[in-house]
């Protein structure tokens, strides 16, 4: 009772509670934030989830090991390829399927293209969040080229369902190499434009620098992963720590910053785009010949046991945990989505900041709500 009275008293002193969302443009989806304000300063941010909960984990329990992969495209739709890849990896690990070398290279190429497309969209959306509309169209112009490549090879633009246990669904389209090379030359010219328009802009830098600080210890304790954690100096790239497919053979650096503010997270993603480009460049001329899919049985049955695999999506560490009882459908599936852990750090980062900066902090967290809610 005493506590309630105290709460009422503080509210009477001028605290204001406002709702952002669930249908607010800057939340990138149906995220509901309950913000307690003191003047313009944020005292508390409470995210309310559940508006786009589809119980994907429960749905997967009634689907076979070939069928459940397509559902995961609907979680983190901006890196749907990588989600599918993570699920395929887990099934392959459990069944000990050897993936052909060609399929491995195709998978990595597709993953990196997806990462580029995701970061491009994030870049445009972030600039739009902080008040610049033009970069959004620039980002979508380049993203459209990647979507065209995906459409030609995979048959779809956003939810590709290209990964199957044992390889990929189709062979590469004959135009693939030509198209990707055209994209690389085009994008390299435009990438400088990105810096000219946004990175060097004084207004943008003032909005970003020193805002939303997350220390290394906090990033670790909140379980952040991906660019959010790497901007705080946590080395957590799954591609380096637990390499899968052909990542050990390619040269790339794990991009790290130590500032931990919004601008550091921005720079990590911008540099990651350059790293993805370099990985694609290294692999595009060295796609080995051979099978694109390993021979697998029509009905997959996982042995009894528990299996876990992890993969680096555009947002961080994506984990797939399968409990099998030896049947054709999983007994239990759990997905560890990077967005959920990254969002949990929002309250800590936003406390004491101005309300206008909240949008910048959320923008640099790169939230995809269906990934958080599943």
């Amino acid at each position, binding site marked *: 009772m005493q506590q309630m009275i105290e709460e009422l008293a503080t509210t009477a002193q001028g605290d204001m509670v406002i709702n952002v969302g669930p249908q607010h443009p800057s939340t990138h989806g149906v995220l509901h934030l309950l913000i307690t304000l003191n003047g313009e300063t944020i005292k508390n941010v409470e995210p309310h989830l559940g508006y786009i909960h589809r119980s994907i984990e429960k749905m997967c329990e009634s*689907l076979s090991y*070939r*069928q*459940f992969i*397509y*559902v995961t495209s609907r979680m983190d739709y901006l890196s749907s390829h990588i989600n599918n890849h993570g699920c395929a990896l887990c099934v392959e690990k459990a069944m000990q399927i050897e993936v052909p070398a060609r399929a491995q290279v195709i998978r990595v190429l597709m993953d990196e293209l997806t990462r580029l497309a995701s970061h491009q969209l994030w870049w445009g959306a972030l600039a739009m969040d902080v008040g610049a509309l*033009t970069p959004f169209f620039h980002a979508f*112009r380049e993203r*459209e080229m990647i979507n*065209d490549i995906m*459409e*030609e*090879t*995979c*048959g*779809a633009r956003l*939810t590709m*369902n290209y990964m*199957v246990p044992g390889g990929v*669904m*189709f062979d590469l*389209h004959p135009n693939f190499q030509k198209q990707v090379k055209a994209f690389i030359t085009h994008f390299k010219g435009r990438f400088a*434009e990105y810096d*000219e*328009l*946004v990175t*060097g*802009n*004084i*207004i943008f830098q003032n909005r970003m620098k020193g805002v939303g600080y997350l220390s290394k210890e906090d990033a670790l304790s909140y379980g952040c992963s991906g660019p959010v954690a790497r901007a705080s100096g946590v080395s957590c790239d799954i591609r380096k720590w637990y390499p899968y497919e052909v990542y050990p053979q390619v040269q790339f650096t794990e991009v790290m910053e130590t500032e931990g503010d919004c601008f550091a997270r921005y720079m990590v993603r911008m540099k990651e785009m350059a790293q993805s480009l370099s990985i694609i460049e290294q692999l595009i001329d060295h796609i080995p010949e051979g099978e694109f899919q390993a021979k697998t049985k*029509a009905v997959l049955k996982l042995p009894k046991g528990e299996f876990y695999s992890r993969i680096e999506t555009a947002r961080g560490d994506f984990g797939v945990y399968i409990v099998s009882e030896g049947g054709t459908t999983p007994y239990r599936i759990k997905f560890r989505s990077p967005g959920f852990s990254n969002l949990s750090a929002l309250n800590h980062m936003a406390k004491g900041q101005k309300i206008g900066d909240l949008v910048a902090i959320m923008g640099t967290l790169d939230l995809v709500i269906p990934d958080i809610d599943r």
Partner: protein
Amino acid sequence: MFLKQYISDVYQGVKSLLRGMRRTGYYFTHHKEIITQEYPDNRDTLVLAERFRGEVVMPHDENNEHACTGCTACELACPNATIKIVTRFDVTPEGKKKKAIDTFVYHLELCTMCNLCVEACPTSAIKMAPTFEHSVTDRSKLIKKLNRPGSKIREGVE
């Protein structure tokens, strides 16, 4: 010292803004760089990728014959119960009973275009078509019958 820093900051700030404005001005005067397409005015010139997955179709040849044996592999492969196959038994001239499809029901409204049915088909009887304009006025119009009236299975397909 403070004043010097202040003036330098202002100078750098204005410079960065002008650099961005130059890029904006470039696109303002270069109309060829605009890449938006006017849909639906571009329907005649619009080229979709051959692998584009728009809907499931069953190709028929000139004799109104298809390759579907009614094995229901696609029905089992579908995660959303999009396909329902109703089979019947035809009597061949030799007096034997042969399984054949009566109706191949395809629910477009349930389909997510995952391509698993096409992958599962042993006789390549169905494929994905590159169409994308599926809007209709009534939901029941989305339930399609893929085998044409009077069609039968192609000779030699088992």
